[in-house]
C-alpha cells in the first residue's frame, strides 16, 4: 500500500484535498506529498497506531441493537481534513450570527411573539410544532439565551462552498470525538505538527464550555456548582458526557443523584445534600422532569422544571430550545436572521421546499426521485428518503406520507457532498463528508476551530451517522503561511 494521488479521482465531486488526479489544493500540498512519501510499512504502522490509541484511550460509542447495547471503538480515518484559516474565519462569523438570531427567535416565541404577529413566520407552524413547549411561555433566561450549545451541520456542494444543512439545538453530541481525534492525530503524525503546518488548536473547548456554563449561574458565587446530567451508561453518548465532565472538572450526575427541595436543586453526596447552580443536561426535554413532561421518565428529576422557572438553577440548553431546530423552521432561518439582526446570512441554507405550501408540495411530489425528503423532527439520519437511491415502493410510500401530513416534511435537492480522501485497505479513496462545528452562546459567543468531520465510510454513500456506519476525521484549520 502506498499513496498514489495520480490514481485518486473524485470525479464530479468537489474534493477538499485533491483538485484533480495528481494535483493537491494549496493548503493540502504538504500533507499530500508527506503521505506520498510514506512507505507501505509506515502507512500500515500509522494506521495500526491510531487503532491502538483509540482502543487504549477507550474512545467508544454505543450501538443499540437487538443483541443488546454494544460499546464500540470509535471509527476514525487518519488522513486529516484541511480547511484554510481565511475560509474558516468567515464561516465562524456566520455560525455566531446564526445562533444569535436563533436565540432571539426562541426568546421572542416564548415571550412577545413579534415575529408571528409580523407574519414573517406563520403562526400555525409554531403552534403545531411538537417542540413548542407551552410551559416555557413567559420565561426569560439569563442573557435571553435559550440555546447555549449548538451543533450546526455544514456541508460543501460541488461549488466548494459551505451551506448549513441543519441546526441542532437540543442535545447535540460529537464534540468529544473532535477533541479525541486531535489527540490521536498528534500521536500518529507528530511530525506534521512540528514544522509543516500552523494548525489551530481545539483543546480549549472544555474551558470555553465551562466558562459559558458558569456565566449562567443564578447565584453570584466565585465557584458555581456546574454539573453534567447524563441518562447513564446505556446512552449512546455516555462516553462524551463523562469526557466533558472530566475535562471541565464538573460533576457527572444521573437523575438519581439530584433532588429538588423548596424549588432548589441539590445533589446527594457522602456529606449530605449539596446545592447545584448550573445543569448541562444531556437528557431530552421530555425526560427532564416527570412532574411536568413524560410522567414515566426515570431519567429526570421531579421538580426540576419549576426550580428553573423560579430562576434557582440554570439549564443548558433551556427546555423548549428545540422549537427552532425543527427542519421546517430551518427553511425560515435566512428571514429570521434578517428580521432580528438586519443582516444577510453569511452562510447560506441549502435550498428547500416546504410541503405545507401547495405549489412547493406539488413540485416535491413530481420530483420525488430527485430530492431528499426529511421529516421535521427526526435526527440521526432516520426516517428520511434519498430519492435518487430509493425504490419505486419507497417513493410511493413517501408520497403517501407527505400527502397525509404535509406539515411534517420538507425536501431538498440531493447535494453533491464534497469528498476527502480516506485510507482504505489498500489505496486512498474519496468519501463524502460533512462538518459539525460547535457554537456556544452565553455572556459571549464562541465557535470551535473546525469541528467534527463525519465521513460516510461506504463508497458512494451519503450517510455519515456513526450509528449507521459512518466514520470521522480530524479537522485542521490551517494558517496560510
Amino acid at each position, binding site marked *: 500500500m502506498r499513496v498514489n494521488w495520480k490514481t485518486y479521482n473524485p470525479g464530479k465531486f468537489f474534493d477538499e484535498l485533491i483538485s484533480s488526479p495528481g494535483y493537491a489544493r494549496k493548503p493540502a500540498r504538504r500533507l499530500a506529498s508527506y503521505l506520498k512519501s510514506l512507505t507501505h510499512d509506515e502507512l500500515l504502522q500509522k494506521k495500526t497506531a491510531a487503532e491502538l490509541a483509540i482502543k487504549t484511550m477507550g474512545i467508544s460509542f454505543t450501538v443499540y441493537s437487538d443483541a443488546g447495547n454494544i460499546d464500540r471503538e470509535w471509527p476514525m480515518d487518519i488522513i486529516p481534513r484541511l480547511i484554510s484559516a481565511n475560509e474558516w474565519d468567515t464561516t465562524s462569523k456566520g455560525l455566531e450570527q446564526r445562533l444569535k438570531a436563533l436565540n432571539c427567535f426562541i426568546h421572542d416565541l416564548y415571550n412577545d411573539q413579534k415575529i408571528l404577529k409580523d407574519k414573517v413566520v406563520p403562526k400555525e407552524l409554531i403552534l403545531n410544532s411538537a417542540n413548542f413547549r407551552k410551559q416555557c411561555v413567559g420565561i426569560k433566561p439569563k442573557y435571553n439565551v435559550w440555546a447555549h450549545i449548538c451543533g450546526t451541520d455544514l456541508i460543501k456542494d460541488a461549488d466548494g462552498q459551505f451551506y448549513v444543512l441543519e441546526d441542532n439545538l437540543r442535545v447535540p453530541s460529537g464534540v468529544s470525538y473532535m477533541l479525541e481525534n486531535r489527540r490521536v492525530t498528534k500521536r500518529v503524525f507528530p511530525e506534521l505538527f512540528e514544522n509543516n503546518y500552523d494548525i489551530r488548536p481545539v483543546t480549549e473547548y472544555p474551558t470555553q464550555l465551562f466558562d459559558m456554563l458558569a456565566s449562567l449561574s443564578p447565584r453570584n458565587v466565585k465557584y458555581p456548582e456546574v454539573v453534567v446530567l447524563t441518562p447513564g451508561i446505556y446512552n449512546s453518548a455516555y462516553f462524551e458526557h463523562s469526557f466533558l465532565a*472530566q475535562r471541565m472538572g464538573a460533576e457527572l450526575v444521573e437523575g438519581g443523584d439530584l433532588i429538588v427541595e423548596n424549588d432548589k436543586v441539590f445533589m446527594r453526596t457522602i456529606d449530605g445534600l449539596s446545592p447545584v447552580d448550573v445543569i448541562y443536561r444531556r437528557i431530552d426535554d421530555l425526560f427532564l422532569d416527570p412532574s411536568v413532561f413524560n410522567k414515566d421518565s426515570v431519567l429526570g428529576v421531579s421538580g426540576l422544571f419549576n426550580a428553573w422557572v423560579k430562576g434557582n438553577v440554570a439549564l443548558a440548553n433551556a427546555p423548549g430550545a428545540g422549537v427552532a431546530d425543527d427542519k421546517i423552521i430551518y427553511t425560515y432561518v435566512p428571514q429570521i436572521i434578517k428580521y432580528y439582526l438586519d443582516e444577510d446570512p453569511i452562510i447560506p441554507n441549502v435550498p428547500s421546499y416546504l410541503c405545507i405550501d401547495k405549489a412547493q408540495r406539488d413540485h416535491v411530489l413530481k420530483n420525488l426521485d430527485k430530492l431528499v425528503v426529511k421529516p421535521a423532527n427526526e435526527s440521526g439520519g432516520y426516517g428520511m428518503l434519498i430519492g435518487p437511491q430509493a425504490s419505486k415502493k419507497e417513493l410511493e410510500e413517501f408520497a403517501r406520507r407527505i400527502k397525509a401530513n404535509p406539515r411534517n416534511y420538507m425536501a431538498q435537492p440531493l447535494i453533491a457532498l464534497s469528498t476527502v480522501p480516506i485510507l482504505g485497505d489498500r489505496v486512498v479513496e474519496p468519501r463524502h463528508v460533512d462538518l459539525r462545528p460547535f457554537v456556544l452562546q452565553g455572556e459571549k459567543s464562541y465557535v470551535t476551530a473546525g469541528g467534527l468531520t463525519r465521513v460516510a465510510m461506504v463508497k458512494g454513500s451519503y450517510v455519515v451517522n456513526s450509528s449507521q456506519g459512518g466514520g470521522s476525521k480530524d479537522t485542521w484549520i490551517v494558517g496560510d503561511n
Partner: protein
Amino acid sequence: MLLSRVAERVYWQARYLERVENLARLLSVYSTLLMDLPKGSKLGWHTLVQISGTEKHFNARYKQQSERNVIRFLLAERNGYSILDCLALTRENARTTREIMPTEAFEMINNLYYLARDKADKAVDRSTRGELLDRIISECQQITGLLGGCMSRDDAYCFVRLGRSLERADMTTRIVDVGSGDLLEPLGEGAIGEDQSTPFENILWVNVLRSQSGFQMYRQHVRERIRGEDVVKFLLQNDQFPRATAHNLTTIIKVLQKLPNSSKVKWQVDKTQRLVRNAEIEKKMEKGLLGFLDELQQEIAAIHFKIAETWFLANK
C-alpha cells in the same frame, strides 16, 4: 464533595481490582503447589472454589472438579466470579468514574481487561497460565501504584482505600483457608501441631506466604522456621504486613477518621478488629480454623453493609 453514586463505584472498582489480584495470586500459587503435594491429598482443585466462596455456582455449572474446569471457572468464564469478569467489572466501574480518576488509570485498566480477554481462554492450559497470571498481578500493582502516586488524598481516594483494604482483609482470610487444617486431613493427625510438621505441610505454608508476597517479610519479622500457627498469626494479626487482615482493618479505621458520619462503620470495624486481635490462634487451630474464619468473614461482610448504609445511594 463526592457524589454517593461515585463513592460507591470507586469503592467497587478498588474492590474488584484487588479481588483480581488476589484471585490471580491464588491460582498462581496453587498451580505450583499442587505439583509438590503427595497424590491422594484432599487438597484438590475444588478447594479453590470453596475458598473463593463460589461453590454453589460452580456445582450448578460443572459435575467434575477437574483442574481445567476449576481454572476455566475462576479465570476465563463469563460468570460474574472469574478474574476476567472481575476485571470487566473493574473496567465498568472505572469507565463510569473516569471524570474523577487520573486519565491513565482508566487506560491501564482498559488495557489490562483487553489483555485478559484475549488471553484467558488459552491460559486455561498450564503452559501459558503462569505468564498471564504474573502479568495480571504486576499490572494490578501498577494501577494501585498509579492511584497512590497521582490521586489527591480526597474523599474519592478514601473510598479507593476502603474498597481495597476491605477486600484484602477478606481475601487474606480466604488464603489462610488454603492452609488451614480442615482442608488438609490426609496429611495425618497432628500435622499442624508442635514440631511434627511434615515436609508437605512446610511446602504448603511456604506457598501460602508466597501467594501474599509475604515469605521474606515473615522471615524478617517472625524469625522462626515456617510453622502453621505462626503463619496464620502473621497473616491475620500482624499490624505491619500490608496484606495482613489486622493491618487492613487498621487502615480502614484511619480512613474513617477523614470521612463524615462514619461512627456506625467504625463501631463494626472495631468489633472485627477485636475478634482478630484477641483470637488465640493455637487453640482455634486445634478445633479447626474454618469456623473462626467463617465468623471473621461474616464480620468483614458486615463492615461492607455498614459502609453501604452510611454513604451509598440506594440507602438514602
